[in-house]
């Protein structure tokens, strides 16, 4: 009886599952299956076409050996993907990560997150750690969500301690940032750094996975009572759980195997030689030897050549295999390892002392704290290598400020964008876009009750009313509807119609606030003096209050500054979503409370014009009011050329029927320069005069009747 292949699951290959279309590629979709060869005991992924051929050949070839030979040739010829097995087998040989196109691990693996993938690739990440980390983290978070099946999702952040770890109790994954922050030192491209950090995250997400991850077995170490010494327990569990969860992640997600392989190779390269033991003797010797032998078996023979290792390690191979194959549970496995280590009297005393000390220090029930304690000697020197897929180096530690800022940028969805119209002959600044988060400072900076000119502003902003007309027919009163008169003969008196006229406007109004440093200087505002940025914030609030209640009018507030990333010599512009309908008005406090840098006015206006075009309806009247103090100023951006750039952008906007009006908040405005930049502008002379000023210019650009 021929039976060379085991099916997984055991069913006829071509038999479609419930709800899945038949196997013919011409009639619909059929997913592939893993097929196991009994010759090599490897699983191969066969797509539906290959499964069809497999079925046909299975029927056609009677002889077992011939069919086996055909299958082995077939998977090579078709380059079928071999299922990932993980690092624990084959023993003492280079790690078998599978040989498919998905697991070659050469170069960078994934670039799906690059906004210019199909265009010309110019690395534009700069060397600003906070922003780089923020953007990389968003990439990693997205990928990890494929593996992380937690509800709610795990929180994913950069580790401040330069090591990756999973905090199951807090539902958090922490990823070592060193590959990203130390790209140059580690000779990594940014893409490779993202690959490695993604791999670290996938490794940690594997631990967190509810079905197969460490989360599902972790309690065995603590119940019915905590094992001891917990430091050794935790390290041993980490070793075999790293191997098991990576293997399971690879089985579940073969497409991610290459990331795990990259982490494997990278981490070995980062590993310190001082953690290579010379013989199997002390507890640190044993732990370091097990990490090498079980996690990097390809290096075991070279590094663990002392006879004591040759005598001891076969037992640990068997110990590991029993756990990996599910013959022994985690608690029993760890207990067996503790018993084995305690066969030596010196090690036994060492472990008893460690357990006592853990109880004294109150870490006996905390795996993480006990492991951290056990890895160091009494002088604080790290004597045991990391067990998880990462490397600790104090120099790689993320400082608190950078970590906090990176976390903030992730929350604010910091990302890069392009604008349509660059300045001619100049290098474009990097465009960073985010939606800043409110904080205590911004809420405190919110200006409470505005002045009493909101009603005057409402009157000033006269938009063209829509005169859409339509008729409601089949009425019993109104104007005679000749088309329906025939009903009268059937005693149906619904022969009247009513005309409806919509008189409210349809308008999209964007405010762009200059949040640059020059806006922090003082301006005379009516009878008093204040910072220009506060004047701008006050005006934005007044305009929003005036506009948001107008039926058919949708206001938005954007802000801009630039060169906050000081280390970036090419210049960087920061554009921000400040307020939109539904947001609390207190977000306007961000205008004055945020960091103030330079101002790339032309780029900012171009960006907002594009937002207006994206967010508005074609029939909307579109208005952009720029609240600024005068002149563009950025890295390699300023003077006449930048003014001309502003004009080019505003003229382009007007061609697209987005009318740009500048309110110039400065007492020393040069009309010639303002006119060079803006076709429509008014000089701010105080809030009380603004309604009249705006009324005139708005009526002019929108061709409406001025209220003043």
């Amino acid at each position, binding site marked *: 009886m021929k039976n060379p292949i085991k099916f997984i699951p055991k069913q006829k290959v071509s038999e479609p599952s419930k709800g899945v279309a038949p196997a013919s590629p011409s009639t619909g979709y059929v997913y592939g299956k893993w097929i196991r060869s009994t010759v090599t005991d490897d699983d191969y992924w066969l797509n539906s076409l290959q499964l069809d051929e497999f079925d046909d050949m299975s029927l056609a070839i009677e002889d077992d050996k011939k069919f086996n030979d055909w299958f082995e040739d077939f998977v090579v010829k078709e380059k079928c993907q071999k299922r990932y097995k993980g690092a624990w087998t084959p023993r003492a040989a280079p790690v078998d990560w599978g040989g498919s196109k998905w697991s070659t691990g050469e170069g960078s693996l994934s670039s799906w997150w690059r906004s210019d993938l199909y265009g010309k690739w110019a690395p534009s990440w700069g060397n600003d750690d906070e922003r780089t980390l923020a953007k990389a983290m968003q990439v990693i978070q997205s990928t990890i969500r494929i593996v992380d099946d937690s509800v709610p999702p795990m929180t994913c952040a950069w580790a401040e301690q330069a090591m990756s770890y999973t905090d199951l109790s807090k539902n958090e994954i922490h990823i070592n940032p060193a590959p990203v922050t130390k790209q140059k030192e580690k000779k990594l491209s940014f893409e490779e750094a993202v690959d490695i950090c993604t791999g670290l995250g996938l490794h940690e997400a594997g631990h967190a996975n509810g079905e197969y991850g460490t989360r599902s077995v972790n309690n065995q170490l603590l119940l019915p009572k905590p094992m001891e010494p917990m430091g050794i327990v935790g390290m041993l569990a980490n070793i075999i759980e790293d191997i098991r969860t990576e293997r399971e992640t690879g089985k579940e997600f073969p497409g*991610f195997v290459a990331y795990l392989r990259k982490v494997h190779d990278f981490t070995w390269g980062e590993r310190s030689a001082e953690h290579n033991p010379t013989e199997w003797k002390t507890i640190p010797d044993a732990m370091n030897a097990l990490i090498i032998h079980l996690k990097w078996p390809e290096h075991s023979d070279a590094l663990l050549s002392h006879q004591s290792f040759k005598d001891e390690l076969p037992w640990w191979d068997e110990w590991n295999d029993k756990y990996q194959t599910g013959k022994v549970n985690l608690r029993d496995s760890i207990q067996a390892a503790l018993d084995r280590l305690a066969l030596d009297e010196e090690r036994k005393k060492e472990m008893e002392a460690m357990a006592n000390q853990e109880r004294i220090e109150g870490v006996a029930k905390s795996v993480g704290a006990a492991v951290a304690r056990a890895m160091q000697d009494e002088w604080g020197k790290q004597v045991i290598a990391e067990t998880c897929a990462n490397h600790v180096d104090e120099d790689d530690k993320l400082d608190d400020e950078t970590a906090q800022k990176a976390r903030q940028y992730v929350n604010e969805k910091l990302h890069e964008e392009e604008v349509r119209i660059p300045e001619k002959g100049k290098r474009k600044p990097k465009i960073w876009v985010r939606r800043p988060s409110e904080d205590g400072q911004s809420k405190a900076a919110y200006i409470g009750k505005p002045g009493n000119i909101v009603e005057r502003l409402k009157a000033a902003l006269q938009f063209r009313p829509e005169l859409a007309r339509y008729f409601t027919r089949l009425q019993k009163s109104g104007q005679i509807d000749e088309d329906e008169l025939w009903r009268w003969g059937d005693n149906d008196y619904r022969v009247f119609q009513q005309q409806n006229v919509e008189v409210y406007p349809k308008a999209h109004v964007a405010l762009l606030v200059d949040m640059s440093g020059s806006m922090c200087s003082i301006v005379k505002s009516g009878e008093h003096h204040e910072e220009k940025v506060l004047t701008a914030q006050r005006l934005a609030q007044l305009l929003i209050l005036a506009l948001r209640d107008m039926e058919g009018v949708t206001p938005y507030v954007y802000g801009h500054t630039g060169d906050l990333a000081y280390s970036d010599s090419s210049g960087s512009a920061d554009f921000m979503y400040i307020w939109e309908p539904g947001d609390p008005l207190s977000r306007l406090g961000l205008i004055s409370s945020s960091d103030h840098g330079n101002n790339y006015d032309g780029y900012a206006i171009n960006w907002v014009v594009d937002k207006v075009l994206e967010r508005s309806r074609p029939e909307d009247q579109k208005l952009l009011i720029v609240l600024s103090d005068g002149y563009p100023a950025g890295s390699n951006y300023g003077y006449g050329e930048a003014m001309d750039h502003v004009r080019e952008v505003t003229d382009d906007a007007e061609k697209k029927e987005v009318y740009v009006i500048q309110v110039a908040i400065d007492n020393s405005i040069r009309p010639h320069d303002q006119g060079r930049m803006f076709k429509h502008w008014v000089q701010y002379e105080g809030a009380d005069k603004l309604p009249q000023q705006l009324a005139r210019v708005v009526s002019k650009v929108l061709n409406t009747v001025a209220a003043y």
Partner: protein
Amino acid sequence: MHNCRHGTVEDLVPGTVIHTHGPEDRSIVDFSPNPDHSDQYDRWMIIGVMTSGGELIAKWVPNPSSKLPAWARTEGTIHPTELEPRLASDNVRIEVAA
């Protein structure tokens, strides 16, 4: 280096990354929870393919390069039978390491 190419649903294994982009790509729009914003989708997504009860299910998650507002960057799943016609689009490519 990475390599993006057109593919079919049979190229997918769990963990495969699929690129999508293009404002004109109406097929991708259907991933959106809000069809009213379909004209704004010159965007990208990652679609990881995962297993669920023995079947392949494509799970899509937000791409940080997306210009979509945060509220629209949701995630979800789609059955491969629905995914298949979309893979033929010029704006959809499957990523493989080369």
